[in-house]
């Protein structure tokens, strides 16, 4: 995990150094984007949601408490709720479209990338992809990931193991 060594502001009441928002945004942007790519399975959507996540984080930056967790975990929590909101609105949109234009074809495909690993990732569920993203790519520890996902540490570990096994099997099938 990369450590934020950027400009810090002092927090006199708590005698704790608090990173600035811009420093955190600069260092965590790729991580949040990576997480959202995995969660949504779509680079375009992930880009939109990344921007939205940082806008939200900007607005509620004063609520961030470094003692309760890392900035990365905090941002991933915001990113997750932003993605869930997106899924909800997408679901509503699809329902409307199904009601009024049943013959419209589904246009949105999963598009993480062109390679076999990306194709295998696309076959995982969003829940599986996000745990892989948080634990493997963003390198959050078990408790922090569990907190972001709102599940127990054990459930998080089980989900990760299952996702990686499934991904390995999919990759094996693709190679064969």
């Amino acid at each position, binding site marked *: 995990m990369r450590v934020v060594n950027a400009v810090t502001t002092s927090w006199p*009441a708590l005698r704790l150094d608090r990173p600035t928002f811009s420093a955190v945004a600069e260092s965590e942007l790729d991580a949040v984007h990576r997480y959202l790519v995995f969660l949504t399975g779509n680079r375009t959507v992930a880009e939109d949601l990344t921007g939205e996540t940082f806008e939200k984080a900007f607005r509620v930056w004063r609520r961030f408490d470094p003692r*309760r967790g890392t900035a990365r975990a905090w941002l991933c929590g915001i990113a997750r709720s932003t993605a869930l909101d997106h899924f909800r609105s997408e679901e509503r949109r699809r329902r409307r479209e199904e009601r009024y234009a049943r013959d419209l074809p589904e246009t949105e495909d999963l598009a993480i990338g062109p390679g076999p690993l990306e194709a295998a990732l696309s076959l995982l569920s969003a829940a599986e992809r996000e745990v892989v993203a948080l634990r493997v790519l963003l390198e959050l520890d078990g408790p922090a990931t569990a907190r972001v996902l709102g599940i127990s540490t054990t459930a998080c570990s089980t989900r990760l193991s299952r996702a990686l096994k499934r991904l390995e099997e999919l990759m094996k099938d693709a190679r064969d």
Partner: protein
Amino acid sequence: MPATDVDFEREFEELVRDLRALPTAAPEHVREHVRLLGEPAPTRTLRDVLPALSWRRSLLVLAPVCVLGLVSAALIHGLVNSGGSQSQALVQQTSGSGGAADKKGSTLELGTSATPNARSLVTPTSGRFQDYEASLTVRVKDVDTLHDRTAEATQVARSYGGFVASVDEATNGGGGQSDLLLRIPVARVQEAYFRLAKLGTVTAQHLSIRDLDEVVKSQRRRIVQLRLSIARIGQALESTSLPADVRLRLELQRDAAKQELTRVTGSNKATLREASLSRISLTLISQQAAAAKKGGMGRIERAARDAGSFLAGAGAVLLFLLIVLSPLIVLAAVGFWGTRAHRRREERRLLSAA
């Protein structure tokens, strides 16, 4: 099943390496967009100033603080209450000094004395009819002394021309108690009271004086009226020219007056008897039995008892609040867990559909 970072990194080494090698960096236009956000204006809120405590931590701090506060309050309450008088003497007096109070019959005067003192006894007013009632609690050394003092109290009553209306003496283990009802002439009640108070240590005294002067005067007036009436009727009946019906009516009136006279005379005698003999309720209590009563307790013991009572009261209030609020607490908990479960289910559904 991998449980730690090392486990899954070792087990899926190749896969993890491939995943980390995926090009997932944020595009430049997103980076630029985020950079443009800049730095939020620093706004200092109460939340920033106060130490950020989770509700669990706050509860962990607040619960012992509340318990400590309650115990301290109970101890202070106990110490403050135990510092007062060892016993309280209630002096209830009906003023008999004349004036408006006499006509109305009674005036109450309540008082306490830190050390009950027989010398502070309100004496009956001479020349007036008064119902004088006193009670006295005297602590004696032990059961043997209790017997002696009971006998002595009987002698005191007799020596002042009075008598013992009732005696009730009971001993239990090392303790004992004697309840005596003494009737002593009002004129000598003060001397008798002082003698009785010297039988031991006075722990409580109670005095009640009811003025009967007006009652006696009224009864006497009524007796005179009735006698006059009877005499007049007698004179009238001596006449021979009275018609039969009038004679009969007068005879009936005379009989009724005589009956009334008998009744009023009886009441008057009873009132005079009441006014002539005072009632003194004497309770002799041995040291051990007295110790069982609050008045005889040590200060620490009383403080502990008062503190205990305070805590019990606080507990009762808390229990009452808990009983009253428990349905609301249950509803809130059900609402909270229900909402959380619904949100989790909704999230799972959305993620599986995505």
